[in-house]
């Protein structure tokens, strides 16, 4: 086992090095977006102070490096980003990084639970549909998958609120915890969990359909390959065949999708967090657009990009471990 470690490490290092130009490009991208947006930091600052004389504005511009040539500004911006300095939010009167850190936990919790549910259930249902391809079971599963794939997350969320909060009164309409609840310990955990059921279910159901469809196609393809026939000829039972031979190989493209889809799911959380008033990054992104808080919005883009790069890196490693055909060296 120790012999296996070095190649995995070199592979990991190589993948990390490949991520560097992508992150640099994203830095340049957010810089350009900030330049395109009307007004700069000093405009915001002056507006915040309620106006200032021209000499003071000029001094502020020098202080913030805004009198420098564009490429120099870009360099200064990138140096700041590397140190996780995303600038100042004039809406919150607080550094962007501080607000982002406050909001990060909620979003990560929502993402982690929804994606685990979507991935597990999607793969499971997809495998069942493929094993009984073109049967009634398959038709039902595939149709449900297609319908959820076509349903906008905000509409699904609203209909869930209508059913479970308005009609049945089982679940809270929104928020992360009961406002005047003051729960502690396990009661607090249960209270938060109750608030997360609907947003998690909405995201899971929508993304489940992606994994379901891919898993079904993947299992159908793998089941026809030679090594499956060989294993069957050697007397492997259908269950063993499914778990050890088919699933293991059919999962590979689905894991790739899990990494690639992560950024889409993060984007989808904007709508769901906004509807359920969850204080996460997605709701913050929406509020930043409404309040024209461009520093905050760019901070969110950059932070999300870093999260996606990390998740992609982890799925790559997982893929490399599962697929022996990948050369690690």
């Amino acid at each position, binding site marked *: 086992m120790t012999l296996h470690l070095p190649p995995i490490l070199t592979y990991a290092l190589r993948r990390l090095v490949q991520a560097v*130009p*992508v992150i640099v*490009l*994203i830095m340049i*991208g957010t810089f350009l*977006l900030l330049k*395109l*947006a*009307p007004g700069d930091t000093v405009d915001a600052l002056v507006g915040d102070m309620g106006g200032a004389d021209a000499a003071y504005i000029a001094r502020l511009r020098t202080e913030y490096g805004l009198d420098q040539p564009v490429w120099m500004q870009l360099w200064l911006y990138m140096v700041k980003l590397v140190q996780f300095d995303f600038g100042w939010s004039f809406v919150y009167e607080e550094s962007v990084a501080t607000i982002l850190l406050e909001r990060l936990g909620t979003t990560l919790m929502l993402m982690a639970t929804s994606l685990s549910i979507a991935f597990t259930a999607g793969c499971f249902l997809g495998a069942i549909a493929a094993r009984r391809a073109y049967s009634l079971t398959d038709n039902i599963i595939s149709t449900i998958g*297609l*319908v959820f*794939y*076509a*349903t*906008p*997350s*905000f*509409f699904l969320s*609203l*209909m869930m*609120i*209508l059913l479970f909060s*308005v009609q049945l009164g089982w679940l809270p309409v929104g928020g992360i915890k009961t406002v005047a609840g003051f729960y502690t310990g396990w009661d607090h955990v249960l209270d938060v969990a109750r608030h997360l059921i609907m947003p998690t279910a909405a995201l899971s159901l929508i993304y489940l359909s992606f994994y379901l469809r891919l898993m079904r196609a993947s299992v*159908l*393809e793998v089941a*026809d390959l030679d090594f499956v026939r060989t294993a069957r000829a050697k007397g492997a039972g259908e269950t063993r065949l499914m778990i050890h031979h088919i699933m293991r190989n059919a999962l590979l493209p689905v894991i790739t999708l899990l990494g*690639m889809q992560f*950024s*889409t799911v*993060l*984007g*989808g959380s*904007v*709508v769901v967090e*906004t509807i359920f008033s969850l204080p996460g990054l*997605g709701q913050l*992104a*929406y509020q*930043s*657009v409404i309040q*024209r808080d*461009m520093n905050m*919005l*760019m901070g*969110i*883009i950059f932070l*999300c*990009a870093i999260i*996606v*790069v990390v998740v*992609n890196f982890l799925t790559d490693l997982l893929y490399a471990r599962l697929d022996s055909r990948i050369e690690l060296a």
Partner: protein
Amino acid sequence: MTHITTELPKPEPHRAVLLWRRFARNRAALLGLGIFVVVLIMAATAGLIEPTDPLRRAGVPLTKPFVDWATPLGTDQLGRDILASLFYGARISLLVGVLATLLSIAIGVVIGAVSGYFGGWIDDVLMRTTEAFQTIPNFVLLLALVAILGSSIEYITVAIAIVSWTAPARMVRAEFMSLRGREFVDAARNLGVSNTAIIFREILPNALPPIVVYASVIMALSILLESALAFLGLGDPNHASWGNMIGQGRAVLRSDWYCAAIPGTAIILTVLSFSLLGEGLNDALNPRQKK
């Protein structure tokens, strides 16, 4: 009298007929086509249903559906006719969907083709750029673009295209990488055909079928993206849009849920129709592919 048999074997049916037969074999695809045609008719006849303005007051606010025949699907809290909004919304959804899809595929084809055909450092630069776009959550980037450009329908369409071109670019690149080494490309190159002509006239037609199928996916996603923007109140306020109707309907969800449910059903059916159409197109264009 001698009878000369001049019977030839039956001529091969026209290519379009063949494609249609393969497409029509898929029942679900026919259903998709049917829904699509209905949405198309809705978009085309919107002006007949409501000649002036779908956003005007047409009746008593919050009339339930099937009560007043002047407003068959009822009215929202501002007294706007839901049926008229639904028809005009079909126009916006299809317009944004089609234009954003064409634009994103055009961007994707150019970037993917150049990347896959030339390879080397050009490929490196373009692929890192593609990865950068894929790394940023598409809806957050869309929000940023709309915040900067403004939310008129033209800018929304462009912004949707900007966040959707990466997948077609990767597909075109993969096709080009496998096709560029083929004999017919070598032959064209030996005849002195220019790179541009080889890319667009020799390789591209062979790389198109999977792209055409994928277009239905982008179309569906574009409609969903536009409706999500409009739902959040960031769409074009001058046009009736399904997403916006749902956003407005949210305020009266408790008492008059039909205000949100009717446009919501329209979005689901429309997006569903593109998924089904895509499967049919796949059957027609890639018949050798398994099921």
